[in-house]
């Protein structure tokens, strides 16, 4: 089947009646001309889908899919169109230089060895084999790439391990873990994505893990929704917030109350893509009695402005600014998020405008570890 026909059929794009609901809710279209239904319509009437900005600008945040009453999966449509564009040697503009090259490099049989576990400090208890595995994702890489923003993303990984240790879990962590391939997949580069996926599945199986815990929503989404299309595996997948919410239910977690008002930003992958809205809120409201919601929350959340590192532009900055403004309006000075990329994007935006925001973006895991009385590792 022709790839575009397959994209239309698989995403039910043929149901589109051009009611314009997606366009009116799209975060991009608020700041520039962008219309998902028009892109779909061009494809439906057989016009060539040009690999232009309409293809690469989409945030794939899923707001359109969430409100579409006809069940059209626009983010997936765009993902498939990007894969067609790649066949024509077109690609989006990566905002962070050579990040994609690193991902593709890791997928090669000749990949150089990684030193992926450099962040494991003496206070952390981890194993090489066992039931429960922690999929760290790109945190050790981001820690180096985004140091200039004052971010220490390995603290997220450390906090996750500390939380697990405190709950009597010694997770498996893998030095031969590779990138989950999320960003390649969403930029239409399927072959290296598949090689990365196969490596991850193979390594996890070799550790005998039955349960894989994630801190990163993108990795979680990729394992949960995309890997099953290509690979067979039967381990249980869980986000750390779901793991914690279960333990809270059992009454086995103790928190120190944090009185400061806090708010929570739903990342698109954890929220709209996977429907996980309650577990992080259950955990946060157990810690912070002054938890407040932003004006747009849960399925109506605003986006952090970019996904897959592609086309971070002035629109993306405006989207970010709008979300941060909503955060400021809650009166909370702490905005918590579960996604390292939301953390990076918001922090980056604020670092250029230090006077505009009285807000600190705090990773979920770091916040929770603090509330569990776990000390930060000093380097």
């Amino acid at each position, binding site marked *: 089947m022709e790839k575009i026909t397959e994209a239309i059929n698989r995403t039910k794009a043929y*149901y589109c*009646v*051009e*009611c*314009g*609901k*997606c*366009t*009116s*809710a*799209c975060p991009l*279209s*608020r700041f520039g*001309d*962008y*219309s998902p*239904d*028009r892109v779909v319509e061009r494809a439906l009437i057989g016009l060539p889908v040009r690999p232009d900005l309409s293809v690469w600008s989409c945030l794939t945040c899923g707001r359109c899919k969430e*409100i*579409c*009453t*006809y*069940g059209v999966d626009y983010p997936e449509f765009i993902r498939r169109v990007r894969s067609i564009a790649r066949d024509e040697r077109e690609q989006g503009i990566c905002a962070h230089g050579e990040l994609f090259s690193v991902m593709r490099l890791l997928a090669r049989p000749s990949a150089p060895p990684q030193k992926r576990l450099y962040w494991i400090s003496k206070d952390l208890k981890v194993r090489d084999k066992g039931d429960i595995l922690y999929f760290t994702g790109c945190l050790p890489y981001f820690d180096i790439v985004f140091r200039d923003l004052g971010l220490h993303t390995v603290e997220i990984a450390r906090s996750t391990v500390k939380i697990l240790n405190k709950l009597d879990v010694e997770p498996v962590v893998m030095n031969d873990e590779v990138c989950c391939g999320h960003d390649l997949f969403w930029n239409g580069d399927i072959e290296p994505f598949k090689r990365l996926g196969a490596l991850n599945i193979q390594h996890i199986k070799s550790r005998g893990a039955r349960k894989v815990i994630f801190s990163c929503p993108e990795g979680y989404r990729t394992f949960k929704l995309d890997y099953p299309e290509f690979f067979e595996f039967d381990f249980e997948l869980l986000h750390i917030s779901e793991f914690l919410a279960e333990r809270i239910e059992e009454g086995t977690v103790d928190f120190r109350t944090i009185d400061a008002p806090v708010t929570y930003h739903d990342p698109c992958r954890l929220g709209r893509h996977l429907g996980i809205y309650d577990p992080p809120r259950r955990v946060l409201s157990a810690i912070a009695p002054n938890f407040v919601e932003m004006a747009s929350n*849960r*399925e*109506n959340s605003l986006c952090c402005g970019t996904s897959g590192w592609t086309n971070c532009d002035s629109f993306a900055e405006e989207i970010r600014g709008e979300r941060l403004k909503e955060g400021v309006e809650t009166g909370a000075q702490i905005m918590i998020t579960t996604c390292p990329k939301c953390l990076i994007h918001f922090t980056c935006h604020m670092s250029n405008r230090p006077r505009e925001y009285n807000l600190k973006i705090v990773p979920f895991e770091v916040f929770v570890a603090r509330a569990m009385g776990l000390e930060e590792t000093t380097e």
Partner: protein
Amino acid sequence: MTVKSVLVIGGGVAGMQAAFDLAEAGITVCLVEKTLSIGGRMAQLDKTFPTNDCAICILAPKMMDCYRHENIEVLTFSEVISVEGEVGSFKVKILRRPRFIDEELCNGCGDCARVCPMGILNRFDMDLRVRSGAYIPFLQAVPLIYALDREKCMRCGLCKVVCGKDAIRYDQKPEIVERTVGAIIIATGFDPLDPAGITEYGYGHYDNVLTALEYERLISAAGPTGGHVVRKDGTEVKRIAWIQCVGARDTRDNRPYCCSVCCMHATKEAILTREHHPEVETFILYTDLRCFGKGFQEYVNRAKDDYGVVYIRGKPGEIREKEDGTLELFYSPYSDKVEILDVDMVVLCTALIPSEGVDVLAKVLGIELDEYNFFKLKDPYNPTETTRAGIFVAGYCQAPRDIPECIAHGSAAASRAMEVVLGGMRNGKSQ
């Protein structure tokens, strides 16, 4: 031996028509209605499309004709709880819920309602008006017999003191009565969908986002504001937008069907608004206008040409409330652009869904529902016949349809039920 009697479940416009047709043919009918009054959803409407006839003016005589007919027994505040037997002879048990007022003695004077100190939101008025704890749901209710809301009652005893007929019965118990009938007609109608789950429109959070049925009560001369359209804080309204297909044609909650009436009732409500308040601007945001019935397209044309109703093609993706309570609608009128419409009231034309409890009723009757909980037809060529012989269906509970269609469907079901109880050759089965 076929019993020459029919049970009709549901006292709305379809059920009443069926009951009346049967009664006129000399067949005895037991009409069972769940609420305190017959009349159904049509009684809540101000006007009907496409003629702008006063709904209750047409309906009230029909209600009286039914109630006073010598061949019709009307059991209100009642529900069918079990059915045994087969076509020709169904044994039916009916639960009669207590009104706590003697139905024989009450003369509807309303003294109990006047002394009752309780204030309770009236469901008939879509919770927009307060009624007393002793009440009839609306002025033209049939039968005109009061009921006590014992769940909210503070047991002061005042109603008993003032009742000149000594009709108050605090210790009244539910009662089960039995009837034997040859055939059954179901006409349980619809409920409007609660749009709170469609979070992009903020119903329940924003004060001035209403449902169409709520607006119908507001615009009704007999409604809580006497037909004067005001915002929740009592201020005058200047600009109103209607949004079509809210929760209907929506695959997210398995409701892909068209409700068949919302293009027209939005048009009607906009026309009425312009008649009541010519200075109010009205906008209808539609996906596509489905003006398929007789006089429908002309009705829309009149709305545009004679009343200045503005139709906009585009389904809003978001509503935001500003600090002064006005609302911003984001929509895209068939372009790459997003437009913002500023209004001070939004009316959601919500999906209409089969009434609450149809699943239980279907089990009681031993018949099937379709995937959206409408009563299933045995086959499409017998449009009143359910999956069980001798049980027929009429009105919205079978499929979306408007008032005249519901009435026609009621008559159709009545004629099939008539065949059965008069010993017709088909015995309730299709050919």
